[in-house]
């Protein structure tokens, strides 16, 4: 065993710190958890380009696709640091970088890779993706999707509806799960993945506002949308396997990101407690405050180790079975606790609008508080993740 960070990783941390100090306004509102990537879109995309120029945006991809072949450990450190400093623009529509690119590298054709990967790597708007998974009748029961793709000559014709589609209003491309066989023995066996140009005729995007009034996700309608057959990913009807892999990629990145966000929050709360006087002493002397922050720190340390362990396992060429689910549960739970504990420590100030100049910690606590319930649902609820652990790690019978 060896838990040292190498010189490369330490240097990267330092570079990102300098980058953040040079590029970010000091009053940057920290409500990323509720806003996703779309608070100030032009600023964010300008940051995406800068991250791309630094060679960071897709650092673990091979050079020929715009990356620099960095290790997954470096990638994990990068994700932690980006989140720690609150650097926007790192996810390009929150799917291209984290799972569509990696999935295309595994399952796409060389032609698809050469077309789409450098676009994502450039940090340009045309590299932004959305992911068409959930439907009105297919949430946790994802295999129940009804959006259909029917072969017609050199094309597929797609009809159906997606919902909770993050970034659809910004995306140039959609990574779409659609049913290609209605007579398959099991419903997950008739699914395929398509790349859909969001500018295609017949695609309609309607905003859905989250409960805080922010426009992050959408419903997307596909009305006789023609997609060239060359946009099928992998084999027809094998989509379920690619989907599971994409979800594992998506769940992996939650731990490093959550770790970064919460590490910043924890440090800021500690410093806030030190500067806040109450009943003649600093809040940091209060035993309850000390215990609450210590408890958060303990599990944050766990999250860090989980993130590194998963990155290490993947880097060994092993296919993680349950670790992504473990990390997602831990990350979501900790985000919840960070938000609640943070709000308790801020007290009455925790109710202030994160954008207000009254807000403490640049609105980070309110951002986390309003955002965690949504984050905990995306990419699989805790109930689904726990069932995955029970079935695939502990060998218990399938329960759904």
């Amino acid at each position, binding site marked *: *065993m*060896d*838990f*040292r*960070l190498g010189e490369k990783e330490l240097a990267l941390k330092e570079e990102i710190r300098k980058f953040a100090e040079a590029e970010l306004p000091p009053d940057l509102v920290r409500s990323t958890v509720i806003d996703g990537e779309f608070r100030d879109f032009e600023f964010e995309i300008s940051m995406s380009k800068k991250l791309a120029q630094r060679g960071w945006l897709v650092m673990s991809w091979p050079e020929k696709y715009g990356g620099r072949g960095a290790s997954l*450990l470096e990638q994990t450190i990068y994700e932690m640091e980006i989140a720690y400093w609150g650097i926007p623009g790192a996810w390009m529509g929150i799917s291209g970088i984290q799972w569509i690119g990696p999935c295309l590298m595994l399952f796409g054709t060389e032609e698809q890779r050469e077309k789409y990967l450098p676009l994502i790597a450039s940090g340009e708007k045309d590299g932004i993706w959305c992911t068409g998974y959930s439907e009105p009748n297919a949430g946790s029961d994802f295999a129940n999707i009804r959006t259909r793709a029917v072969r017609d000559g050199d094309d597929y014709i797609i009809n159906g509806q997606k919902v909770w589609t993050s970034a659809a209003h910004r995306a140039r491309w959609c990574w779409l799960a659609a049913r290609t066989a209605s007579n398959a023995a099991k419903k997950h066996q008739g699914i395929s993945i398509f790349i859909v140009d969001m500018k295609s005729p017949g695609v309609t995007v309607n905003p859905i506002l989250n409960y805080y009034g922010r426009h992050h996700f959408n419903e997307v309608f596909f009305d006789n949308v023609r997609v060239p057959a060359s946009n099928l990913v992998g084999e027809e009807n094998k989509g379920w396997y690619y989907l599971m892999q994409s979800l594992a990629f998506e769940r992996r990145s939650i731990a490093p990101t959550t770790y970064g966000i919460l590490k910043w929050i*924890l*440090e800021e709360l*500690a*410093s806030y*407690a*030190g500067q806040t006087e109450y009943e003649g002493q600093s809040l*940091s*002397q209060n035993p309850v*405050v*000390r*215990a609450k*922050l*210590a*408890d958060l*720190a*303990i*599990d944050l*340390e*766990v999250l860090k*180790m*989980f993130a*590194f*362990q998963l*990155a*290490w*396992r993947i880097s*060994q060429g092993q296919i993680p079975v349950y670790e992504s689910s*473990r990390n997602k*549960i*831990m990350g979501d739970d900790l985000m919840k606790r960070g938000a609640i504990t943070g709000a308790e420590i801020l007290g009455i100030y925790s109710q202030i609008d994160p954008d207000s100049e009254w807000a403490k910690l640049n609105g980070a606590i309110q951002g986390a508080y309003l955002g965690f319930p949504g984050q905990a649902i995306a990419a699989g609820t805790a*109930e689904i*993740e*726990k*069932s995955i*652990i*029970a*079935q695939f*790690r*502990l*060998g*218990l*019978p*399938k*329960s*759904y």
Partner: protein
Amino acid sequence: MDFSFTEEQDMLRILARDFLAKECPKAKVREMAKDERGYDPQMWHSMAELGWMGLIFPEEYSGMRASFMDLVILMEEMGRNILPGPFFSTIALCALPLLEYGRSEQKTKFLPQIAKGEAIWTFALAESSGRYKASEVKLHALLEGTNYVLKGHKLFVTDAHVADYILVVGRNGEGKSPEKGITLFIVDAKGPNVKMEAIPTIGGDRQFKVSFDRAEVPKDNILGEIGNGWDIVDFILQRAAVLKCAEISGACQAVLDMTSSYAKERIQFDRPIGSFQAVQHKLADMLIDVEAVQYLLYQAAWGISVGSPSPWQISTAKAKANEAYQRICIEAIAAHGAIGYTMDHDIGLYYRRVKAAEFAAGDIDLHREMIAIGLGL
């Protein structure tokens, strides 16, 4: 970064697991809980022959020159199996500081005895408050001629009744801070004026009140420097915290395995209870706890192994282990139903040992406080 064990470490784990499964079945654990000595001298002897007592000593002290991480692996297996006896008291609490702070002649005298299984040691720190703070060390030591004379008492001293030596934390003076004026004395446990009274515990382990009524200790039998003993206490508590985490980690894994197997076998409503999500999710939470304990343990142990122990890593590990062990046992009993509440079932053996493990080398409050300090609070 590397999360893998070496081949030798995997071998050590398998060897330990096989030995303990054979020599220390749960029937033996139960028997030892009622036994006068609380351990099996025959097994103790075999463990010494396997090189376990001297695992991390250099060869010159009859050791195996293994790493701290190797000791962690061994003690995970001991914890998994609930090995009764004074291994933790002797090795974690006493042999390690002897190796680090002992003078050459002390090491030559004491370490080979320990390695050969010929001497049992224990450590006496806590007094009436039961807290591991320097300000709570009241037992005083006065120099009279060539001897220090100890007066006072210690509580919760593990395995004192079978110990040959007790490492006693005493106060020989007052300094600017409570940490000053503390010294560690190597006391003959069978000597005159050392009295023991058993403190019955819920864990089936052996703990004692040890009273020193003018017990004489030759000046040579001091570990480290006079008055600067608190640094050694810190050293002991840090290593012991990690090694207790190792025992807890093994125990947690055993409880999870036991519960997971039971959930697959136990039929209710015509199907295994492990097919119900209420049970599955409990087990998934337990697994996350088990792995949390493991990785914090390995991180802290690795720091010690490479010579840069981190109080932060040690405290996060022990705090997590304390909390998780208790929760895992409680959830496991719930998953078992009434059978888990019986004397015949093994789960209770683990649950009854939660508290002893928690207070060894620092409860959750002590470690939370260390973490709060680490956060700059």
